[in-house]
Structure formats: C-alpha cells, structure tokens
C-alpha cells in the first residue's frame, strides 16, 4: 500500500488523531529509553561528556533517511504527498541559534521536556512553563517583525536533492557516511572527555 495512507486511503481525521496518540507513545517511549528525560544527560553533550543525544538523533535521522529512500524506490510512499518543512533561511538560522541557547541553558528541548515531566522531573515543569511563556511572547510580538519571519524564503519543498540536482539516494548515502564517521568520532570524544560511571 502506498503511503501516506491518510491520503491514499482517505482516512478520517478522528482516526488519525487516535493513531497519533499511539505514534506519540512510541515517540515518548524511545525518548525516555534513550535517556532524554534527564536534562543533565542532555546538557552534558555540550561539554562532550555524553554524546547520547547526537548518537540517538543521528541514528534516528539515518534510519529515517534510509527508510524513506527505500520506501520511495519500492513505491511504498509518495514523497510528493508527505509534509516537507518550508525553508526560510534567516528566521531558520536565528531561530536555531536561539533554540541552541535555550537548549544549553534549559537542558531540555520541547519533546524531551514532556518526557521529563512524565517521569516527574521538577526542572521539566519549569522548562515547560518557560517554553509556553516564550511562545506567548513570540505570538504577541511576531506582527512587529513579520517581514523578517518570512525572509529568505528558499522554497516550500526545498529538499537537498532539488537544490543540488542530485538524487535522493545520493544525498541519503552521503548523510549515512557522514553520520557513521560522526559516530566513530563521538565514541572517541566520549572516551576522552566522558564521565566515568
């Protein structure tokens, strides 16, 4: 069956909502399994002492890249029908840098803070309240910098293959190789800087 099934089988929204509850369970489960409920474990990546985040995240990305590339070539998924994040260069860079500061200071990112809350981490509660406040401020102030918010628009479905003229498989292959080298590097860094348990 060619995915996304919601479109090809025309699935009702309420059923999608229910399915998403279960997808969320899987998401939260593996985040917690990986240690992402613990803010200090997350933050120690920035001191090269614990590179779990890098390893989990890039393994997930590589799994996604390989999976989507195969599914596309098998005809199991129509890549033209799946959600692609729009590319707005300047707000993407500035927003990313601000998120980075928030990550180092706050220890969590939004998804992991929910897992922190689920496992009763008190700092996660304060992080979530802070996030809600930051988003409130954004919503209230974005009309003042609307032009910047829409600046540097590269395209709505601007994937790397389209930008470079290479195929999805070629880009995926490069990402996999770079990630594998990154994993080797991460293991070495952890041996050098890591905390002895």
């Amino acid at each position, binding site marked *: 069956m060619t*995915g*996304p099934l*919601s479109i090809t089988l025309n699935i009702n929204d309420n059923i999608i909502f229910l399915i998403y509850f279960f997808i*969320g*369970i899987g*998401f*939260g*489960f*593996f*985040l917690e*399994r*990986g240690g992402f409920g613990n*803010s*200090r474990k997350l933050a120690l990546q*920035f001191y090269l002492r614990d590179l779990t985040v890098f*390893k989990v*995240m890039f393994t997930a*990305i590589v799994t*996604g890249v390989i999976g*989507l590339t195969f599914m596309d070539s098998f005809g*199991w*998924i129509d890549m033209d029908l*799946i*959600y*692609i*994040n*729009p*590319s707005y*260069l300047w*707000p*993407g*860079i*500035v*927003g*990313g840098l601000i*998120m*980075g500061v*928030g*990550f*180092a*200071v*706050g220890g969590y*990112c*939004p*998804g992991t803070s929910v*897992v*922190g809350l689920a*496992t009763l981490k008190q700092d*996660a509660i304060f992080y979530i309240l*802070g*996030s*809600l*406040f*930051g*988003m409130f401020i*954004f919503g209230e102030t*974005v009309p003042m910098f609307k032009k910047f918010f829409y600046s540097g628009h590269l*395209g709505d479905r601007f994937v*790397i293959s389209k*930008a470079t003229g290479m195929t999805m498989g070629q880009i995926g292959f490069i990402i996999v190789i770079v990630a594998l080298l990154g994993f080797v590097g991460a293991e070495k860094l952890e041996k050098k800087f890591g905390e002895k348990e």
Partner: protein
Amino acid sequence: METKKYTNPYLAGVGLGLVMLIAFWITGLGLGASGAMMRTVVAVEKAVAPDHVNENFYLKKYGGEDKNPFEHWLIFEILGVFAGGIISGAFAGRIKKETNKGPQISNRKRWIFAFIGGGFFGFGARLARGCTSSVALCGGATMVVGSWITMIAIFAGAYMAAWFVRKLWI
C-alpha cells in the same frame, strides 16, 4: 525498584527512526512537539481574549474564528509522548521526583534557568517554524535544506552558549 540502564543509544535511535517512518507512512506528517505547546498558548489566549486572537495573523492560524487550537494531531501525539514516557520510565524504575542539575547549583537556581532556557527555546522554535522534533528529526530525515541549516544553528548556538552556563551542569 532498581533503576535500569538506558537503552543503547543506537538502538533507541533506530526505534525513534522507525516510529518516525511509521508516522510518515500512515499520515505523511511526521513528528512534532513545540506546535502542541503553541496550540496550548493560543487556546488560553482564545479563552481570555478571542478578538485578540482573530486580530493577530500568527495566532489566527491556530485559533482564529471557529478554529479549535486543540483539534490537531499534534495535541494527540504529545499526549501519547507523555504516556510513552510514563510507560518507559515505569518499566525502568525511573519515575522519581527529582531535579537534574550539575553538582554546583541549588535546585532553585536550576528551576530559574530551566524557565529561562525554556523561554528561549520556545521563542526560537516558533521563529524557526519547528523544534528538534519536526525540524531537526523529520526535516533531517526528509533532507530539507532549511531544516539542516536550522539543525546546525541549534547545535552551534548550544555549543557557544554552553561555556557561559557550564556551572549549571558540570
């Protein structure tokens, strides 16, 4: 119950990746997190000042006119994330009231900085149109130019800021 060790990171990563692939295959939408928080903010604003939400181009997208900000897949997904965290934490004996922090600071100080950090992340996530879940994870897997740039910016910002806040963690 004894606390179990975390799963091997590569194994957890494959698990996360497979969940993402299933999400793409069934719904075509992938994963997210910060959008659910934004929707919560808009829902509160709408309850207090519905006209204000209608007048703001950004808030209107989420809860303008008769739109219910909570009627969205992200809300159900994030409830699932919470449940999944409880399930995994319970199996591993990790559900424990505590504050994670470096050895040099008090709980209170950690809470204040958690709030500040959350504030930055929340603002940045809306500016970049998504957080580590939808932009870095899903945008990374779908190989989107803007998402990879944002992902690199997140890590660049974090590694630069880390030195200044090292007392919080080490």
